[in-house]
């Protein structure tokens, strides 16, 4: 028998209690890992480095209001602007209203240049782009979306509009791969389809996405664009793409504060539960601890043994919790990723794993140290007299 065997056998003294405490730790660490990963995912949405060079120009009154497409000419004239793409959220579905994914009518001529990182432009050939540009009823889809629906190039996708009274039949001309899974849950088709099918959309668009040459120019450009269109019939609200995305995340409320609040509550609860369990377990072994010390185990050695038990117990709970969260992340990507594209990037990242494990171990140390220290400082003669 070695030390680890001794620690293990002590932990297995009350299997039910050990299983319950590990179970509660698994659930707690799982909850914290998932919540913190959600925060990381949302943070990535609003701090996308690829977005740092892009601006979104929309109607000041909201996304449901349109802007004249003629604004595009002004935007293009600005020396800081490299390219501009007009984009309208179409909001259609494929076959079943529950089969929701992001789909847009967009200016096919500037789309690839404006979002070259998202489209993984280096993996797309000129011929593929030409195929799409040539076919007015063509569309492009991300690989994840194509896989989910079993689509391949050449397939026809009938899209049923929910906002606009048209149901275009679109032919897939390109399936692109993006560095981020969330950017693959999307479909784009020619803007013309919307303009020709919906007369009221003639010459109007929901938003312009402008790519600038340098991110440093953005604040000046925002101010200039909004000033230029101020007091017109179509006043603009220009913001960075990250700020635009943030406005969607904000619709969920102050989610960061909610998540941190829940995390804090879970951590406090688990410290109390673990501390109480370890205190009870150690108190029950008062006589045994005294016998160990009488046999020659120093107080320090007994303390290390007890701490090791606590850390092993909590460490196991933390490890299983993180593993469970990792498994759940796959489910979240699959189920929520289609409805809310940013969930397609949901993952338990290494820094979250590290924080959860370090936190669990710290809780184990804290919860065990106080009762263990007290037990090892108790006179041996008192421990031998203790019952239980």
């Amino acid at each position, binding site marked *: *028998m*070695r*030390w680890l065997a*001794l620690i293990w*056998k*002590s932990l*297995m*003294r009350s299997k039910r209690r050990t299983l319950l405490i590990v179970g509660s730790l698994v659930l707690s660490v799982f909850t914290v890992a998932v919540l913190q990963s959600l925060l990381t995912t949302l943070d990535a949405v609003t701090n996308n480095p690829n977005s740092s060079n892009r601006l979104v120009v929309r109607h000041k009154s909201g996304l449901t209001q349109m802007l004249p497409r003629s604004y595009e000419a002004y935007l293009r004239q600005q020396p800081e602007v490299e390219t501009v793409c007009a984009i309208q959220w179409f909001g259609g579905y494929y076959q079943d209203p529950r089969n929701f994914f992001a789909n847009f009518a967009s200016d096919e001529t500037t789309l690839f240049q404006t979002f070259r990182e998202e489209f993984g432009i280096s993996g797309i050939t000129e011929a593929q782009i030409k195929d799409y540009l040539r076919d007015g009823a063509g569309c492009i889809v991300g690989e994840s979306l194509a896989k989910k629906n079993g689509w391949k190039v050449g397939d026809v996708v009938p899209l049923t509009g929910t906002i606009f009274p048209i149901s275009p039949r679109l032919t897939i001309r390109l399936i692109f791969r993006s560095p981020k899974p969330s950017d693959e849950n999307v479909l784009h088709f020619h803007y013309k389809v919307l303009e020709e099918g919906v007369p009221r959309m003639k010459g109007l668009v929901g938003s312009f996405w402008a790519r600038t040459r340098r991110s440093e120019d953005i604040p000046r450009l925002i101010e200039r664009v909004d000033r230029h269109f101020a007091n017109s019939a179509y006043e603009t609200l220009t913001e960075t793409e990250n700020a635009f995305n943030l406005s969607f995340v904000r619709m969920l409320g102050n989610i960061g504060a909610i998540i941190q609040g829940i995390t804090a509550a879970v951590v406090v609860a688990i410290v109390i539960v673990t501390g109480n369990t370890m205190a009870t377990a150690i108190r029950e072994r008062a*006589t*045994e601890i005294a*016998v*160990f*010390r*009488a*046999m*020659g*185990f*120093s*107080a*320090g*050695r007994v303390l290390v043994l007890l701490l090791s038990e606590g850390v092993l117990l909590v460490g196991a709970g933390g490890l299983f919790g993180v593993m469970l969260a990792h498994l759940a992340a796959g489910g979240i990507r699959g189920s929520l990723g289609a409805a809310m594209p940013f969930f397609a990037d949901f993952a338990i990242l290494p820094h979250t794993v590290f924080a959860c494990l370090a936190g669990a171990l710290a809780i184990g140390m804290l919860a065990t140290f106080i009762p263990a220290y007290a037990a090892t400082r108790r*006179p*041996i*003669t008192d421990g*031998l007299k203790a019952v239980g």
Partner: protein
Amino acid sequence: MTADRFDLGGGEPIITLRDVAKSYWRGAQEIPVLQGIDIEIPAGSYIALMGPSGSGKTTLLNLIAGIDRPTGGSLEVCGHELNGLDDDELASWRNAHVGFIFQNYNLVPVLNAFENVELPLLLTGAGRRERRERVGQALALVNLADQMWSYPRQLSGGQEQRVAIARAIVTDPDLLVADEPTGALDAKNAEEVLALMERLNTELGKTIVMVTHDPKAAHHARHQIHLEKGVFDRTVEVNR
């Protein structure tokens, strides 16, 4: 025979107590438990400490075993001045020199007999093979070699106490201290345990200090020391 001085005969003393006192404090009130204890116990002795409840016999045993500290006087046990040792040194000293036998056996319930006996050896630096040999010898000495893999719950009280004795002797200590070792046993098992302790004294030369209320158990010792209100009352040499 009653002795006027508490000199238990010839031989090199293994335990020397000089004016040892022990008091406890209840608030500001001092409660003396032992006072003026002077004694030399030669190596190889078998002593029964007797006396009524509260006479201080268990306290004296704890002081000799190094699990409690006196409030006055000095103790030299197994060649070490215990007052001069810090807590860690005292723990190492106990591991090397003292074997404990408790009334309630105090085996670790989640360890089998082998592992319980092996426990004190984990501190000695002995290798796995050496530990296995010594545990085997200790269990054979208490006639429990065939129960090596049994857990305490699978053993009778007498067997549990014999495992505890094997644990006490596995490090080959000079001194065995026993606090009411037969207090939880029936007469037959008590007799077996006492016979075993007697063998450890006579055949292996272990010095044994035993606290007991039981005159029959005390009769197995060579000397009985009676305490009364924290002081020595008398010693009796047992004629066997």
